[in-house]
């Protein structure tokens, strides 16, 4: 039986069941319902994958399945259907979303076992899956936008899931959720403007129609550039790129499985997906594409430097996510659309693993997140340690692990396009390796700095949490094999995705990408390996060796270090330049415009109307004589008017 047309139905049913019955099912029942729903979607995704792969193998025509659910909007010249588009790009995405999503659902059963609001949690998770699938599978920008907003909503709900707790001393979880939502709105605003521009210029929001129209009759360069930049603004919001990345680190207020699922593996890659989906529009405006590349490259190194100084295990991972997303944009910007998607896939594996591992540590540490109070955990949490190590090796890009291949592909593309960008990428690779091993050493090696009462309760997480870790660890090792560089073998993913990016060949300057020569390939791989090892060595000497000596965590006098620790004080700058002026303006509108001007005007006219009523009331005196008199008066006035008119 084909499940893929029903792929949206499963999470929907799951969330309905949990919304109604969740409390009665208990945490296991509720979690099982949610997980099975996602599992069924995953099976549907696999079926869709098999079908699409078959179509790709046939090689003729377009490798895609379209499931038309219903005609959604049909107004005037505008129409949008709710159709699902299964093509190689969307199939790869849903495989990751449902596959990793399923593992995280299962993991959550263990992680959320002590929380009384598990039903609400699973409802949100399934709602997220629904929205994310809608985002990826929609065959037009409008459905994509619905999913886009839907995942944003779920992200908000889940960041503020523990709305009664404080995230930091200054910020409540609810405020963190709000921040994420509002920053995203800035991006969404750009996205929406882009949609309006697309519709006014191409009279459709359907991907095929728009891309065909854009390729054959492109709009004015200015308009195309605006569309590209506005879409990019949307993507920087959702995918936490410069300048809108500030929400993601604070999104860590949510439960850790949420960080893994939404703020690492899936939702934040929506921007990457959207840019990859719109590759035609970007290919037509090479300048914008260059902007994409620079945004990605700069974000990558920017976030990586911050990650080197953070002491909260989830914050480090959060900045590392921003940095890795930067790599993806770098890849997209260097026209390696397939490479960007490849990194989405591998990153989903190892970053989900890192977060789940971190969650396992936090769970074992009774909600402690500060790595300064950890250390030596590898003996107590062997499984978590082993899987976390694998993920670290993968993200650091050591040869053989999945991250190596996808990062390498992006770096190769950057090298052939703009060596400066490649330089940024390599330095970031070194930094990545450094901060990840720093995290590793501080958490799992050295002497234990765990507070005694926490240490007493320290034990490895239950199988429901560790089995997903093991599966993800396996994927983190072998996941790179689907995209080997030309010198090593076949790029399976690239071949699979080829039909999607077929349209690029018709655009000038985007013919078959010239492959680097084998020697250059080897050289580049060698350099990035050296960078990774360099990072490791630096961490070894500067963190592990220094180890427990005093002064490691002392407040540094180095101004740059403190700037990094304060995350370049971007939040403060935004607060000063945007938040405060806006809030001042709002206060002015409230106190002066609304309370003084509008309220007075409204109250005054209300008073006038009331007085009018009271005046009328005088005539309504209850006496029949006067009633009859007014009737006659009215009649007489009527008749006088008639006479005047005729006389």
């Amino acid at each position, binding site marked *: 039986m084909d499940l893929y047309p029903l792929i949206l139905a499963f999470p929907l049913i799951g969330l309905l069941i949990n919304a109604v019955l969740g409390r009665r099912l208990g945490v296991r029942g509720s979690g099982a319902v949610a997980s099975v729903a996602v599992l069924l979607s995953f099976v549907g995704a696999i079926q869709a994958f098999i079908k699409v792969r078959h179509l790709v193998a046939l090689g003729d025509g377009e490798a895609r399945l379209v499931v038309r659910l219903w005609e959604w909007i049909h107004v005037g010249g505008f129409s949008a259907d709710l159709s699902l588009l299964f093509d190689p790009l969307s199939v790869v995405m849903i495989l990751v979303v449902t596959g990793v999503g399923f593992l995280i659902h299962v993991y959550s059963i263990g992680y959320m076992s002590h929380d009384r609001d598990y039903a609400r949690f699973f409802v949100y998770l399934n709602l997220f899956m629904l929205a994310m699938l809608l985002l990826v599978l929609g065959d037009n920008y409008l459905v994509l936008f619905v999913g886009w907003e839907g995942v944003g909503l779920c992200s908000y709900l889940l960041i503020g899931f523990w709305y009664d707790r404080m995230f930091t001393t200054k910020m409540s979880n609810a405020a963190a959720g709000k921040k994420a939502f509002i920053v995203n709105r800035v991006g969404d605003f750009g996205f929406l403007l882009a949609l309006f521009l697309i519709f006014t210029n191409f009279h459709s929001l359907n991907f095929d129609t728009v891309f065909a129209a854009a390729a054959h009759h492109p709009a004015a360069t200015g308009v195309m550039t605006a569309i590209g930049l506005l879409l990019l603004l949307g993507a920087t919001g959702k995918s936490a790129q410069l300048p809108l990345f500030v929400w993601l680190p604070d999104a860590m207020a949510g439960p850790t499985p949420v960080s893994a699922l939404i703020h690492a593996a899936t939702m934040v890659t929506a921007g990457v997906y959207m840019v990859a989906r719109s590759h035609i529009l970007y290919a037509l405006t090479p300048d914008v594409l260059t902007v994409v590349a620079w945004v990605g490259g700069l974000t990558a190194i920017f976030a990586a430097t911050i990650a080197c100084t953070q002491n909260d295990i989830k914050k480090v991972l959060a900045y590392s996510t921003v940095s890795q997303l930067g790599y993806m944009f770098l890849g997209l910007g260097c026209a390696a659309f397939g490479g960007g998607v490849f990194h989405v896939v591998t990153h989903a594996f190892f970053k989900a693993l890192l977060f789940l591992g971190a969650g396992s540590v936090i769970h074992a540490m009774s909600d402690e997140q500060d790595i300064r109070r950890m250390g030596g955990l590898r003996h107590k949490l062997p499984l978590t340690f082993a899987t976390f190590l694998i993920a670290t090796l993968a993200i650091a890009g050591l040869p053989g692990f999945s991250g190596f291949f996808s990062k390498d592909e992006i770096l190769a593309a950057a090298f052939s396009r703009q060596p400066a960008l490649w330089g940024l990428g390599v330095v970031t690779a070194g930094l990545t390796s450094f901060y990840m091993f720093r995290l590793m050493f501080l958490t799992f090696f050295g002497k234990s700095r765990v507070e005694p009462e926490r240490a007493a309760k320290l034990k490895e997480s239950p199988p429901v949490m560790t089995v997903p870790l093991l599966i993800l660890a396996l994927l983190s090792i072998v996941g790179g094999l689907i995209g080997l560089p030309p010198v090593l073998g076949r790029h399976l993913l690239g071949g699979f995705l080829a039909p999607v990016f077929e349209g690029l060949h018709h655009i000038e300057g985007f013919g078959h990408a010239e492959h680097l020569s084998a020697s250059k390939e080897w050289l580049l791989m060698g350099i990035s390996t050296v960078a990774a090892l360099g990072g490791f060595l630096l961490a070894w000497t500067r963190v592990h060796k220094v180890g427990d000596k005093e002064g490691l965590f002392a407040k540094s006098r180095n101004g740059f270090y403190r700037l990094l620790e304060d995350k370049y004080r971007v939040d403060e700058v935004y607060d000063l330049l945007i938040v405060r002026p806006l809030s001042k303006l709002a206060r002015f509108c409230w106190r002066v415009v609304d309370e003084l001007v509008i309220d007075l005007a409204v109250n005054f006219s209300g008073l006038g109307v009331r007085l009018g009523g009271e005046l009328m009331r005088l005539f*309504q005196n209850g006496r029949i004589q006067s009633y009859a008199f007014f009737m006659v008066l009215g009649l007489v006035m009527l008749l006088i008017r008639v006479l005047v008119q005729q006389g």
Partner: protein
Amino acid sequence: MTNWNVSLLAPEIVLSVCALLIMLLDPPLRRKRLAGFSESVALVGFLGALFLGLMRIGLPVDSSFGGFLIADALSTYLHILFAVIGLSVLIMSIPWLRRDGVRQTEFLVLLIFAVIGMMIMSCSAEMVTMFIGLELLSLPLYVLAGYLRNRERTIEASLKYFLLGAFASALLLMGIALQWGTYGTLHLSSVAPGSGAAPLSLPLAAAGFWLVVVGLGFKVSAVPFHFWTADVYEGSPTPVTALMSTGTKAAAMAVLLRLMSAGFAPAAIEWMPVLWWLAVLTMSVGNLMALVQANIKRMLAFSGIAHAGYLLLAICAGGTAGNAALLFYLAGYTVMNLGAFAIVGLLEGKGERFQSIYDYSGLAKRNPWLAAMMTIFLLSLAGIPATVGFMGKFFIFTETLKAGHIGLVVIALLNSLVSVYYYLRVIYLMYMKDEWGEKPVCRVPASVGILLAFTTLVTLWLGVAPNRLLDALMAAARIF
């Protein structure tokens, strides 16, 4: 050739037979304790009339009794409307009759006769027949208004209604006489053309016309012929108020529509300015007065006056579409008003004690369903979207705008704005305030529950999907 086709009167005949049956058989049967006999007969009568009215949909235009009666789509529509109104008022009144321990035989008979009067008005093609219908409607209402004859307020209402009504009837009759003297015919469709002169060029003809308008204006409670409305609505038993505010208004408005858009349409240029002022006054005074009322029935009375103003707007708009908008609004107004009065009737308690709007405080906690439905009716009366009240206003205002009366529409919009205040005040009290004083438990009889569910659904349904009814009414709006 004179046509004596009696079948045109089938609904009226069925109702008359039922009324006679009740009168004849109720006294002997009552002794045998056959309770519910009269109600059942009345119910059967209204259902029969409704059925016969529905049967007539789509039949060609016909006339009978020498052209005194006309059966066109308009009269068919109004027959159906009046049957529904009669049925609803019957359903509302049965619990009331039981509750206040009032003799019911006469009540039911008078109710039926009043409805027959409305029906005759709606299908009369000629002024004397119309007048007979009007009197057949008015006389039972005078009695019904004072049905609780041991209650002072009711007597006062009845007397006021009777005296002023008789006065208005006299004016109307005078107008009819003047018309006859001028034109030699009283057929609504042919008065003016028959004379060969421009319709209102003769002073006497004009005076006659305006006297007729005043007589009808009294019934629709157009300002300044409206003074009776609040006192009478307040004093009358609530089901009777419901009948007056929906049925009487609809019947008189229908005659006014026939008059203005058939025989006197060519004279529009002369009556339009006056009607313009009538509409403005009616809307504005109605809304301003409603603003300062604390009794819910008085408030609804003035709100009814304001709505009569909106209906006059539709007559100003004219044309088939304008007429259709008027008829649509009439249906909507009827439904939401019936619903609102049904709830008022339920909540006022024995002896009609709880009629202050402050008695509605905290209703949402005491009786969430009633509060929710009352909210829907009030929102609809205020013209909030997704209700029939909004759609009706929308159609009327659009048509008026198309007819070029921009000023009128602006005033109407301002009026709607003002009206939102007093409707929302009740909603505010129901939801935001705590209960005020002790209230008896309000049980909703199944029949009234069904009526409320029906009116709520229609209010929402016509607010969301008005097109089918509107299309059907376009046929009824072509008046000959």
